């Protein structure tokens, strides 16, 4: 079942792409992450040009996060005020990211920077998550009640000027903090094709100290709008959004996510987090190894 991708300019096995989307969707349904950090590297590995992979993966994440946002909204789990500040930051960030992307592309170092950023981000977040989940699991085994970390924002956040009240999040902090966080994820979305949920969620919990019940919903809300903005930026600048590729990925991930979320209910959350941490770490290690191994191709060609 081969199908020709009009923008990527090559033909792929339709089933492979749908299954890839399905697998990523399964994981995203299970763990509540977008899964962009898996889609983009896997697409590149399959032979899709990196820019097309990054752009189309962003398009797919938009679709993957819609139903999540709607579900969270029904549950009253979105802080719209916080979300809008983050979206504003995200749009600024994706604009900056696009410029950075083009600059690095001209230098010929975009692939290396993408891999290095992946290794640093996934390595540190995966490590943190693994440590936290193992501690929780061990505490459970010993029969201790899990210690509740006192919810408060990081001292660095308190330094920022100008404070707003975010009622739903239960915070009185400077809007610059979520804005800057939004900028960071915007840059990541444009250049890596990830939603940035795996950066946002820990940052919202540990840096901002947001109320737990609005963290996931607000992060999904931000991802929805920033990936949509990113699609527009890629469509008008790099022209690398492959609508057929995004469609195939979406069909797979829409189905996979539903199965995954059912799966998730059967597992304890700390085991789920440990599994996700191991997966994230595995991707980081694979990327780190890829940087140091002699690559399959020494030469590469770029059109002028």
């Amino acid at each position: 079942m081969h199908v020709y991708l009009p923008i990527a300019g090559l033909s792929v096995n339709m089933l492979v792409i749908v299954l890839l989307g399905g697998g990523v969707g399964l994981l995203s349904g299970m763990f509540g992450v977008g899964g962009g950090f898996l889609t983009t590297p896997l697409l590149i590995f399959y032979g899709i040009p990196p820019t097309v992979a990054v752009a189309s993966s962003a398009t797919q994440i938009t679709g993957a996060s819609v139903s999540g946002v709607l579900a969270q909204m029904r549950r009253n789990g979105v802080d719209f005020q916080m979300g809008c500040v983050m979206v504003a930051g995200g749009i600024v960030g994706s604009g900056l990211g696009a410029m950075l992307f083009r600059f690095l592309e001209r230098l010929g170092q975009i692939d290396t920077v993408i891999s290095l950023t992946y290794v640093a981000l996934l390595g540190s977040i995966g490590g943190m998550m693994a440590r936290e989940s193992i501690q929780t699991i061990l505490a459970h085994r010993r029969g201790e009640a899990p210690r509740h970390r006192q919810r408060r924002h990081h001292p660095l956040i308190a330094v920022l000027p100008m404070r707003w009240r975010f009622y739903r999040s239960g915070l009185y902090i400077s809007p610059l903090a979520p804005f800057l966080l939004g900028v960071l994820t915007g840059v990541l979305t444009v250049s890596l094709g990830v939603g940035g949920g795996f950066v946002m969620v820990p940052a919202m919990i540990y840096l901002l100290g947001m109320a737990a019940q609005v963290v996931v919903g607000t992060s999904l809300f931000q991802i929805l709008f920033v990936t949509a903005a990113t699609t527009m930026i890629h469509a008008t600048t790099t022209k690398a959004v492959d609508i057929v590729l995004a469609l195939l990925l979406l069909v797979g991930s829409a189905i996979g996510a539903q199965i995954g979320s059912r799966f998730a209910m059967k597992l304890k959350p700390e085991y789920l987090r440990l599994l996700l941490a191991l997966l994230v770490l595995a991707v980081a290690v694979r990327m780190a190894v890829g940087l140091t191994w002699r690559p399959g191709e020494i030469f590469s060609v770029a059109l002028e």
Partner: protein
Amino acid sequence: MTRAWMAVAALACLGAGKPVLVPDVSDRQVQIVYSFTGADLLLFGAILYPQGRAPDHPADIAVVLKGPTQSILVREKRKVAGMWLNADSARFRSAPSFYAIATSRPLARLVDGRTAAIYELGLDSLQMSPASSAPPDEQNRFEQGLIDLKRRAGLYVQDAHGVEISDGVLYRARIAIPARVPVGRYVAETFLIQDGKVVAGAVREVRIDKSGFERFVAQAADRWSLAYGLVAVGMSLAIGWGAGALFRRR
């Protein structure tokens, strides 16, 4: 009809003493549609000798299919501080995006290096117009790297026995066009080679184009990029919402 006239014209030339080529290609237009996984192009034709019969030393045939030339930058990775990074680069102003040559005998036995260079016969004789002042051996290294890369992608092909000549007068060669082929105007050249010299040549044009839906999508992405982006976002919103609604109802 035109083909018939060409044959008549060719027959009229027979008295001239030099052999004449009557070439053709199986498709003047290769259409890339959704199911495109590559195509085979057949280049065939007849060699018309004076007096109408093949000489004792039959001539050889080389067919070349060349894609539009591109200006490209070739980068070379090198190990820096334990990591493989793009280090040196070289610019080529006129590298063919696709180049396939098929000959009836190995090229080295047909022509010498000079003739090969004049007619751009063979992968080692491509005129890529390097645009740097780097020393020749370095340029050569990049050129070989590029050829090797394109070769394994199926975009540069050299087939030493790709042309079949039957009864000394009819020839045919099959050239495989991979799915990753760039679109544009291609040129199919046929050369008749005798005693190390090109004695006749003919050129046919082949167009490779996206068609139907693929063409529409590629054009839309290029010309109406804003609308294209909006449609892409709208599509993913609709599918994401639809799938969620569908599963929730169950």
